[in-house]
């Protein structure tokens, strides 16, 4: 079959052809970029934190009328209160282990700073590596389920305590594998020293954990999302956070026991509905916007594809109706059903082909525009190619029903007056 008669026929209904091609082009441009956004969001949401997230929950509480954390005396009192809480929680029957911690991955309340090879390198200085700090104790690894890959874990002797805003030397730390690789590319981080937050006192790296995400999920944290530093220190303030690992399958029971237990230790504290929450909730909250954006883009893509497919069905049906007699003549002259079917499918392929060529250019243009105005990265070619194939397939599928109806036009139509 030569293309010539198809092209000649297309020229007769230019407007319809151009409209379908335009619609395919626009659809391709939007769907490619929307699917790319969905893909990016899914990648973000699926990042693993490095924690064993099941059976893990967080307790955030605040004392009322607590001693002032700015005085040495106050800090000691606050620390005693914190240790009392920890002891009470650790004795609960459904609790496996508890660690005090200033934040958790995905919690979005973070203490960030910098680490450097040089002493006294101030925070804002260039060449420092950004990191997020976790202040915790020797039960941290087992409570969070973070895997140690080199060196040793904290022991009780490593653990210090300090007022929330105080400055104290940090003799030892555990860092993540990614941070270790950044600081010591040769892979010999354990036993080396680094300087934290512009301090002049060295911090010895005693251990490396496989992976632990920083608390921040905003785009500002993307550059150092895996650079966490763990410091064996309890922070003393008028509030405290405890990470708790329940015994397997006992998450709900352990969570229920927390408020009565802590109130028994000291009723002068704020514990509300939000104070005890499973890690799954922290995760859901952190990625709510990303999941939402993915769903929204998905819904829009679905509507778009349906509208475009329906538009092709509608216009092709119209053409079939218009060319009823012409088809009858072709059939009478010996064209087989399959020839008619193929005619409409090739016609659609030509139109859709022109559409996707423009569509690819539009997709890339839209992507570039989004990159310059919003936080987007360059769209990978496979996305565009998949989009092209999908649009061509949808065109073929949409044209099938009207084309089959056309192929069923009996040759006798040719003899009838219109």
């Amino acid at each position, binding site marked *: 079959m030569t293309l010539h008669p198809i092209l000649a026929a297309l020229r007769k209904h230019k407007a319809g052809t151009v409209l379908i091609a335009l*619609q395919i082009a626009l*659809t391709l441009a939007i769907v490619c*970029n929307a699917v790319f956004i969905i893909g990016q969001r899914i990648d973000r949401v699926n990042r693993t934190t490095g924690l064993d997230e099941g059976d893990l929950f967080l307790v955030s509480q605040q004392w*009322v009328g607590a001693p002032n954390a700015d005085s040495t005396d106050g800090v000691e009192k606050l620390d005693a209160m914190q240790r009392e809480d920890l002891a009470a929680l650790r004795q609960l029957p459904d609790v496996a282990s508890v660690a005090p911690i200033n934040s958790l991955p995905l919690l979005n309340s973070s203490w960030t700073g910098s680490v450097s090879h040089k002493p006294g390198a101030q925070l804002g200085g260039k060449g420092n590596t950004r990191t997020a700090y976790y202040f915790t104790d020797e039960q941290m690894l087992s409570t969070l389920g973070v895997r140690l890959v080199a060196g040793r874990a904290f022991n009780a002797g490593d653990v210090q305590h300090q007022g929330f805003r105080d400055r104290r030397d940090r003799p030892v730390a555990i860092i993540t594998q990614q941070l270790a690789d950044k600081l010591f590319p040769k892979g010999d981080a354990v036993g080396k020293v680094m300087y934290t937050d512009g301090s002049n006192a060295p911090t010895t790296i005693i251990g490396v954990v496989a992976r632990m995400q920083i608390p921040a999920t905003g785009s500002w944290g993307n550059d150092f999302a895996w650079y966490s530093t763990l410091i064996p220190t309890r922070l003393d303030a008028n509030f405290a956070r405890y990470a708790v690992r329940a015994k397997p399958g006992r998450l709900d029971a352990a969570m229920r026991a927390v408020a009565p237990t802590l109130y028994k230790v000291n009723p002068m504290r704020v514990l509300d509905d939000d104070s005890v929450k499973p890690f799954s909730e922290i995760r859901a909250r952190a990625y709510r916007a990303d999941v*939402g954006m993915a769903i929204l883009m998905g819904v829009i893509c679905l509507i*778009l594809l349906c509208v475009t497919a329906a538009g092709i069905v509608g216009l092709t049906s119209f053409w079939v109706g218009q060319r009823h007699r012409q088809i009858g003549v072709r059939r009478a002259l010996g064209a087989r059903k399959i020839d008619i079917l193929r005619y409409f499918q090739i016609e659609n392929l030509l139109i859709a082909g022109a559409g996707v060529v423009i569509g690819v250019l539009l997709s890339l243009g839209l992507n570039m525009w989004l990159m310059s105005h919003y*936080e987007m990265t360059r769209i990978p070619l496979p996305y565009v190619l998949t989009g092209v194939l999908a649009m061509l397939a949808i065109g073929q599928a949409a044209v099938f029903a009207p084309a089959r109806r056309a192929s069923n036009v009996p040759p006798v139509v040719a003899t009838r007056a219109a």
Partner: protein
Amino acid sequence: MFSYYLELALRSLRRSPGLTALMVLAIGFGVAASMTTWSVFRAVSGDPIPWKSSQLFVPQIDNWGPNGRSDDGEPPNAMSYADAMALMRDHRAKRQSAMYQVSPSVVPAEAGKHPLNVSGHAVYGEFFPMLDVPFKYGSGWSESDDTNRATVVVISAKLNQKLFGGASSVGKTVNIEGKDYRVVGVLDDWNPQPRFYDVVNTGGFSTTGDDVFLPFLTAIQTSMPNDGNTNCNAVPEESGFVGLQHSECVWIAYMAELDGAAAATSYRNYLNDYSREQQQAGRFRWAPNSRLRDLPAWLDNQHVVPSDTKVSLLVALGLLLVCLVNTVGLLLAKFLRRSGEIGVRRALGAQRAAIYAQFLTEAGIVGLAGGVLGLLLTGAGVASVGWVLPRDIAALARVDVSLLLLTLLVAVVATMLAGLYPTFRASRVQPAWQLKSN
């Protein structure tokens, strides 16, 4: 004549129900997607205080120097304690207030009730008149309360309901962080979105309103710590909250009210003079680099409208565009199928204008039907944005009369625009040719 066209249009639409349904569905979905995302965009990009936003200004002072600047040379977006205090002391604006976010505990007077956590701000007395904050009972506090570090408090209607059952609590005391504060005012419903007076600490939007407002200096004196962001480009040399106050860390929001361009210019000069003084005193080792933006410019600068919201709106508008292109095609098919009818009408003397009127009426009806469907879908869409958007933002999107009218208007106008080309083609039908071929 119009009723005749209406009848013709309805008859024509009924003749091909499939094509009609397709167009109505496309318009309905396209409009609904655009209107739903628009309602969210409208909610987050609205002016929170339209009658006054051009008189409210946010000053920025560069206390970090070149090392702390972002790539575009912007100074920090909050203030250090030293600078905020200096600006308050100089008092060069009509009204001004330094602010910081607090989250103290409140102990209910009734025995047996557990303490609760509230959010709030430590502000100066001028905060209330400056932002036209509405009061249900009482009022804000005076300048002397500020300087005397009075233990007074303004509470929200919500907290007043919780603690005092909604009756006027002016003169009563509230225990905040173990200390008694005298209530001087109870706010009326006031929950501006975005939280424009402290974008730095709230990120713009928050579901929890401020429940308490305390005098700034009183909060500092009782060392009520700040809740929210603290940004430092060097670690404070001293420990504790006092150490933070002596440091160059930024954590204080600031707002000033200035009448007119002249006042803004002189305030700008004042900020530069202040920076120059600090330079001469040796605290800043760089040339003045201050900023003064009015509220709309400030909200824009701080990217208060989340980029996701903008991208969704754009993508939804793209969807509407595709739906319209689709409608152009379908209308074209529909109208040209009736070439015979048009030919007869034209041959019988109908003007082109009559053809236009007839077919645009038909397009308008499709648009109206699509709009009604769009209304239902927009309602469903706005009701379900809570599913897909962060709660604090989704809560702002709502359906109101203007959104409903806009939905209908967009649907009808867009469809009629889409119908222009098909109508033009229909009006070009040659009467003689049609008569001959049929």
